[in-house]
């Protein structure tokens, strides 16, 4: 039994590219059906085009890198929350009695929670993306936050991108240091306790307060991230500062 027009329209609206033989026969059956099918084809082409977003540059490399990053095995675990991990395993090196101060309004429960969460997402992949950035490239990322970066910092940045932070957008960088690649995240609107340190997944991190906002330096356990404290502290400064 062949489809009536109402059934045909319903099928056309639900699955216009259906290969069901009865539907395909109906498409060609009478002018009324053919016209409806042609209109649906035009709409479908527009719909497909509208939904066709490009994979961002570097994203595929970042995905492929996952299987070559040793820490990805642990990073892929069931996303342990930093606070419970710290309490359970005692891996927190030092969080002051007052704890890390924060001004959360964007969903993470704490800065450390954000830090572990974000680093597990993005850290290993970005570390693997080598590439020299010009000073202008780097500076452009900071301008929107009304801060500037010193040449001491810009000349060692190999990867830079915008990233979410606990209080809005920030900047995620990978720096080329003599100890190897180190991650730095600039958080323009987040307050932290200066020089707080923490550990997760074989990584160590140090928080620092800046003149405008804050940052975190993340490196492996073998790297001397505290040596970068003054570089970062003195390198990200308000745009209209005299320094």
């Amino acid at each position, binding site marked *: 039994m062949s489809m009536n027009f109402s059934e045909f329209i*319903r099928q056309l609206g639900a699955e216009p590219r259906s290969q069901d033989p009865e539907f395909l026969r109906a498409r060609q059956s009478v002018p009324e059906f053919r016209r409806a099918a042609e209109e649906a084809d035009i709409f479908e082409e*527009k719909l497909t085009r509208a939904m066709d977003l*490009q994979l961002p540059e570097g994203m*595929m490399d970042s995905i492929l890198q*996952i299987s070559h990053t040793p820490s990805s095995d642990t*990073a892929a675990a069931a996303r342990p929350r930093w606070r419970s991990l710290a309490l359970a395993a005692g891996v927190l090196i030092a969080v002051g009695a007052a704890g890390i101060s924060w001004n959360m309004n964007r*969903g993470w429960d704490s800065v450390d929670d954000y830090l572990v969460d974000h680093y597990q997402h993005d850290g290993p992949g970005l570390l693997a993306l080598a590439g020299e950035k010009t000073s202008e490239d780097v500076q452009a990322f900071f301008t929107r936050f009304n801060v500037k970066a010193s040449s001491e910092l810009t000349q060692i940045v190999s990867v830079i991108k*915008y990233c979410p932070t606990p209080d809005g957008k920030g900047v995620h960088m990978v720096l080329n240091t003599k100890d190897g690649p180190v991650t730095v995240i600039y958080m323009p609107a987040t307050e932290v306790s200066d020089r707080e340190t923490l550990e997760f997944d074989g990584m160590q991190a140090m928080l620092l307060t800046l003149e405008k906002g804050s940052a975190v330096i993340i490196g492996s356990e073998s790297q001397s991230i505290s040596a970068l404290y003054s570089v970062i502290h003195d390198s990200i400064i308000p745009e209209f500062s005299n320094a």
Partner: protein
Amino acid sequence: MVNESDRHARFNELAKNYGADLYRYAMWICGNDALAKDLVQETYLRAWKALDKLNDIAAAKSWMITILRREYARTFERKVPKFTDVETVVIPEDSELEPDDRAEIKLLRESIMELAPKYREPLLLQVVLGHSCQEISDQLGISKSAVMTQLFRAREQLKSRLRKDGVTANVHELF
């Protein structure tokens, strides 16, 4: 037991075959570039970890989507904010299109984001990932008949929005 080399090859195949589709899917369900990238990255991290559990490579696409959807649900369990920073939404400029077509595509994109999730998600699975109604039914855990109704209504709402907004008249307003 799969050796390490085969494991890497299998993972690379998953990345190359589905990376772009997963990003599109993530982008359309969350509407934010940074979150979409995170969702895709996390999906592949989890896939790498659980790769040995994927017995049937033909089921890989649905498996990956399931991981991504779970991760997206977890995102909201963690109360990660819904971003509204439109600057971060990457939608390529269709420079080869005529202005009228561009306006129509732009309106369609806005309209897709405005669809209720119950209409948008089946549409994404069908248009972006090429799922059949039965596959969507399996993925979303609803009947095939319900899937067909939602797809039909999704398209009707999009067409209605295009008709209502009179695309041609709004070209200059939009660009």
